[in-house]
């Protein structure tokens, strides 16, 4: 029995317990606390170990095709597990006066994400992600923040996009399994597939094709431009814990899949010119087009939802560059973005509950009565802009620096041009985030709407996330050491 199995099972069991009638808040908080402790324990243990998979354990589910419930973690998966447990804890913690289904769905989404990050069998990686998607849809459709018809429409849109993306992804994964199983039987074991890929690499043209299919599949799940239009309305409508968990954690699954499955199995596929150009164009769409869209948003939830789509572009940039520094930066950015967007969505949910509106022209001067809330929001907003000292900065710098390599004067490659254009995204982030911050918290308070600080125990989940941003921003080596040479 591996510690990872406990980490995966705990939230799912807690969800079951709550459904069966256990006290919802106590059970959920207890399980997520223990989970965070276990993930921290595993990370500390792993830091002392050599690179490679650790805590492995496999239970055979089917012999042919070979499928097993195999767990295992390296630095990347532990980083994401850490993100999951942090956000899950905060998401569960900030729930107030809601039906039990809020706890159950949060635990299911978190547990599903945990399973997707910590298993090493393609079958289960895919299966756990799907498991986490179902409560997301149901919660948007049932408890979303819009009238019934509209939230159902939003939920269906997300379902159709993500369902189609999942099917493309399934096709890509099946292709991978068929190509790399080799020999006599099909296998879904990632390590076996990886070994086979190293032993007998595919022709480059074929690698490019498979990589592209996987990119479209995983990309849709991460709201890669132009398959992004489900994301913003879904996040703006989703109940707070679901928005925190999906945008913060579950969306990272697509990126994780690319790093974990596509890049190691098809190392040359990503570098083929047409694939790379397509990816660069799409990620520029994320950064520049969505950046402009975000600037035009006039409600806080719209701004946050669109910005979360936009920021995926930087992470894709790290993947497109493929250098070690860029990839590590991408993983760091995944962590940082997950924490910061969860913080912002959590605070945004509180604001909506208290104020009833999030439109900029109806708000102002909130800082006077809610100073602590304002400071917490500032942490999230500034992290999201990429202020040095907060986690996102470290990730963005590494991505940009790692992508702008092999520079010769006068000979700019497409990648270089992309980096130059992408840098403008940082400016756009500053524009819309600072504008939002100023409109909401500063200026005249004569709008008649004001809010109060949450009680201390309700501040704690947000303090936890803000502190994480600060700590990993000042000491990014904590996570970088954990990643070792996994990439």
């Amino acid at each position, binding site marked *: 029995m591996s510690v990872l199995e406990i980490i995966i099972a705990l939230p799912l069991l807690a969800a079951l317990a709550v459904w069966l009638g256990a006290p919802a808040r106590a059970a959920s908080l207890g399980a997520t606390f223990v989970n965070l402790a276990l993930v921290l324990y595993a990370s500390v243990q792993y830091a002392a170990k050599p690179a490679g998979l650790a805590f492995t354990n496999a239970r055979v589910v089917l012999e042919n095709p070979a499928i097993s419930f195999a767990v295992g973690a390296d630095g990347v998966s532990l980083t994401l597990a850490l993100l999951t447990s942090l956000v899950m804890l905060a998401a569960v913690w900030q729930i107030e006066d809601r039906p039990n289904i809020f706890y159950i769905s949060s635990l299911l989404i978190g547990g599903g994400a945990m399973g997707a990050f910590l298993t090493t069998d393609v*079958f289960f990686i895919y299966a756990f992600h799907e498991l986490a998607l179902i409560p997301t849809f149901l919660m948007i459709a049932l408890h979303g923040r819009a009238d019934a018809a509209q939230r159902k429409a939003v939920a269906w849109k997300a379902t159709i996009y993500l369902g189609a993306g999942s099917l493309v992804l399934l096709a890509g994964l099946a292709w991978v399994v068929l190509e790399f199983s080799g020999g006599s*039987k099909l296998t879904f074991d990632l390590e076996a597939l990886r070994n086979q890929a190293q032993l007998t690499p595919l022709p480059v043209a074929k690698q490019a094709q498979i990589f592209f299919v996987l990119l479209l599949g995983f990309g849709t799940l991460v709201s890669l431009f132009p398959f992004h239009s489900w994301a913003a309305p879904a996040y703006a409508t989703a109940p707070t814990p679901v928005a925190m968990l999906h945008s913060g954690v579950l969306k990272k699954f697509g990126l994780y899949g690319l790093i974990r499955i596509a890049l190691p199995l098809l190392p040359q596929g990503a570098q083929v010119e047409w694939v790379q150009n397509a990816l660069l164009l799409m990620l520029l769409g994320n950064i520049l087009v969505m950046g402009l869209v975000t600037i035009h948003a006039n409600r806080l939830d719209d701004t946050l939802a669109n910005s979360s789509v936009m920021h995926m572009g930087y992470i894709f940039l790290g993947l497109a560059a493929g250098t070690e520094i860029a990839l590590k930066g991408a993983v760091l950015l995944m962590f940082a973005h997950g924490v910061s967007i969860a913080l912002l969505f959590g605070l945004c949910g509180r604001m909506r509950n208290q104020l009833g509106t999030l439109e900029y022209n109806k708000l102002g001067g909130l800082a006077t009565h809610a100073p602590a809330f304002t400071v917490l929001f500032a942490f999230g907003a500034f992290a999201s802009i990429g202020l040095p000292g907060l986690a996102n900065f470290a990730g963005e710098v590494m991505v940009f620096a790692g992508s702008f390599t092999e520079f010769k004067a006068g000979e700019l490659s497409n990648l270089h041009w992309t980096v130059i254009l992408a840098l403008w995204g940082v400016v756009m982030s500053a524009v819309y985030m600072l504008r939002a911050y100023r409109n909401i918290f500063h200026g005249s308070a004569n709008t008649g709407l004001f809010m109060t600080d949450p009680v201390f125990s309700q501040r704690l989940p947000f303090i936890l996330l803000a502190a994480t941003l600060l700590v990993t921003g000042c000491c990014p080596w904590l996570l970088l050491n954990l990643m070792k040479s996994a990439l």
Partner: protein
Amino acid sequence: MSVFTIEAGLALLGLVLLLVEAFKPDISRRTLGLTAIAGTAFALVLLPFCGAPLPSFMQPWHQLDTLALFYKGFAIVITLLVLWLTLECAPYLTRFTVDGKLAEMFSLPLIVCSGMMWMASARDLVTVFVALELVTVSFYVLVAFARKSAFSLEAGVKYLILGALSTGILVYGIAWIYGATGTMSFEGIGKALANPATSKSTALFGAALILCGLGFKVAAAPFHMWVPDVYQGAPTPVTAFLSVGSKAAGFVVLTRALEAFLATGSIISTEVQAFLLVIGSLTVLLGSLPAMFQTSVKRLLAYSSISHAGYLLLALACSETARFELSSGGIVAFYLATYLPMTVLGFLGLGLMRANGLGEDIKDFTGLAKRNPTLALFMTISFASLAGLPLTAGFIGKLFVFLGLADHGYWGALSCAVIAAAAGFYYYFKTILAMYTTEGVETTALTLSTASKAVAGVLVLIILILGVYPKPLQKVLTASPAVVSAK
């Protein structure tokens, strides 16, 4: 003890119950039902001890391999569930019968069961025909059983006319095959078809007629038109029986017939395979796409059962390969084993809704989660499994089919199957969503008897266990094919 004892015993029990009801009209239906259930359960217990060879004069028609044994168990289990479902729905059903009694509803299923068990062992076309008619004729009565309901009568007439027509086609095909090959036994047909001297066009015509005749029985497109009306009109327990039992019976015959038609060196194998692929692709699409527009859950399940038949036909088109341990017949058996619990659960939900005075439309399912959370959860799992959500039994079944198709390179059929699966997600989740919608429903509680809860709980467990640990079932189905066959 030989297995024939059980088959004869069940038929005998059915006849006895019929006579008892006729001569002792005051006997309670509960006694009758429980006797039938006890008899079937006893048969299930005895089944593993029935390895003794049959008397030698029967052996030319009757074989006992793993597949036969599996389907015999399958027939008994579904009969057991149908009998129990009938008892549960009895108060409602009796309103539509002429004398307010249900006697034949308890005796005829036993005779059907006996026929299905006999069919599983059939070694030649005559045995198949006799067993098939035993099953079909009993079903004519069962479908029209609720005689005071116009729908049931209509369904009965439709089923009778089309069933008789398909029987005619089947017999005609058998005659042609006999003319072409000079034998009725599957083994002999396989051998004759491998002989280049056999007339190809004659054999092909006969095989096509047989496949069309069986296509009616398993509801393959374009012979599926009767299904929605008949399934909707028939009493719910009978619909469940038709959808699982009758379908499985059709598929065991198809498996045997195809073993002969696709035997090594068969002169008609290419054409038969192409036929299966076309019919299978058509069936998944014509089952799934219309299902999206249904408003009645019972009709929706009818269309879904058509589309499941399509997956099974596609599985049959993939003959055995080295990369796969399960033969195509094994995949079909596996798929049916996963199909049983989820379909029965679906019909159980419908039956209980009816028993509580509710309708069968999707809108009647609105708010089910509030009325009876347990039933809603069970039905959610069943529908999720029907849709093919990972970690449920339905996914593994579909995975086998998809991998088989991909392994053979049948890309056209595979894309049809994927489209149908995607559509499936839509209509199953539409129903699930309705169950959890809360606004605008009066929430009278819906009662569920302890026995129902227990049975449904077991079915759910089977779905989940098969979904994460299918190995044991696969082992059973891959055991060498003739372990128990008589020397």
